[in-house]
């Protein structure tokens, strides 16, 4: 059983990683990163359920990851808004005054 959850989590993580690195829209990149964090959460709860003798620390970890994800996305969205105001676009390939 654990195997199924972990495989799903690994696939989610890879989709997220691929999306975050290949997409050009700032908001879509953020959505992909959320996918990666949720993959981590899924793996955490399934580890807590099946493998770990003390599941509480894993489950508490999930809550902290949720909060951290919310905080990160809030700040990143504010920055995307600022970029839209200064550059009139949120396509990250057009945000290239400096070379990556």
């Amino acid at each position, binding site marked *: 059983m654990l195997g199924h959850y972990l495989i799903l989590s690994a696939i989610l993580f890879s989709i997220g990683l691929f999306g975050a690195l290949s997409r050009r829209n700032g908001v879509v990149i953020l959505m992909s990163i959320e996918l990666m964090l949720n993959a981590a959460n899924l793996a955490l709860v399934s580890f807590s359920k099946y493998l770990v003798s003390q599941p509480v620390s894993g489950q508490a970890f999930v809550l902290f990851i949720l909060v951290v994800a919310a905080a990160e996305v809030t700040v990143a969205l504010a920055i995307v808004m*600022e970029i839209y105001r200064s550059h009139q676009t949120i396509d990250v390939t057009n945000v290239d005054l400096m070379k990556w």
Partner: protein
Amino acid sequence: MEIETILPELVLAAAATVSLFLSSRKALWLGVGGLTAAIVLVTLSWGEEISGGFLIRDNFSWFFNLIFLGSALLVLLASRLDLILREREYPALIIFSTIGMTLLSSSNDLVSIMLSLELTSIPLYVMAGLGRDKKSAEASLKYALLGILASAVLIFGMVFVFGFTGETALPKIAQAVSKAEVNPGLIAGLFLMIGGFGFKIAALPFHMWAPDVYEGAPTEVTTFLSTASKAAGLAVLVRILSAFEAPVWLDWGMVLAILSALGMTIGNLVAIHQTNIKRMLAYSGIAHTGYILIGVASLGMDGAALSNTIFYIVAFALSDMASFLSVIAISSNIGSDDIADYAGIARHSPLVALVISLGLISLAGIPLTAGFLAKLYIFTGALDSGLSWLVIVAIINTVISAYYYFKVIKVMWFDEPLKVNRVTVSFLLGLALLVSSAGILVMGIAPSLIMNALGQISLPF
């Protein structure tokens, strides 16, 4: 858990919160006061060891706390007045980030490492955008997107370490790892975590953000990023790696050695071609992360590696601080970051030129400066632990790096001045320059002062 475990953080948090409701100048002074009080508290607690729950305050964390608080204080003193007057939240953001760093170096649990890492990073994402121009917004976007990506990777790694050891507390993880059999899940977890921290310290394959963010962000923020933020990432990396010391099948030392060799070589080679001084210092910082990783890679093999590594971190922080603070002074006067525009600065303002030259000389590793001794200690330590190929790479790199550091010095002292622009330095910025350059010289001439303190630092597992 007693209240004194987090007393410095409480003082800082109170100062930062109150400063949000004050006028800009008062906020600055409150911030300076809070940081000074925290420095005093941390210095008084030297030698004490308090551990409670998620945190452990030992000499390792006290020493790193002093590095973070000191660089935050210097950066705050050296900040341009117009930036402070325009952005009232600026002192509070610096202090919140510093709180994150002090907690990060004291964390003893994966949960608290993750939380304090975010507390460190999120204010920095905002601060990178405080320049309020296109470049600064761009730096902020790049730093935030890549930073969040890196922390997602880091968290995924932590989940696997938790899953395959069943613990989140570092001492218990260390126990579980020493008993574990060969386990690819644990290897994947550790290397994902190294990737996440590699981003924070701008180690080579994860360095892409550094040059752009360093160039686009206000120079004060760049200074903070390249000194305190890098030291924080290294502190937590050392603490985590020391928990993974036991098993032979988990040879992170070799991986770090390869990252270090790549970082030094590519960082130095790319730095040669840079025309913007902030970009050049960014690549030089990537190369110096490489030198520091030599020390980290030999942690498991050499008893003195820990104090050598910390010595290098302090020396690098001071030299980079002196260089970047002089860049603040010069660039705000001549209005350009291009190395070509620095021509003949020494004719009009020999003192500032002297400080930046001292910083660059120390980064290059010339005797009588902190950088020389730091390199000497790290290289001899690595030779003792059998990493002689890495030392050869590092020495070749030191020679390469001297070229571009001395190019800047030559431009400043011997080229014909383009414009007649005296560099005026405010009193506080002058004080910060004086402190950092005095630090470089003291560490270079009397290293025993710091080495004695470093000898009292040990990691519990």
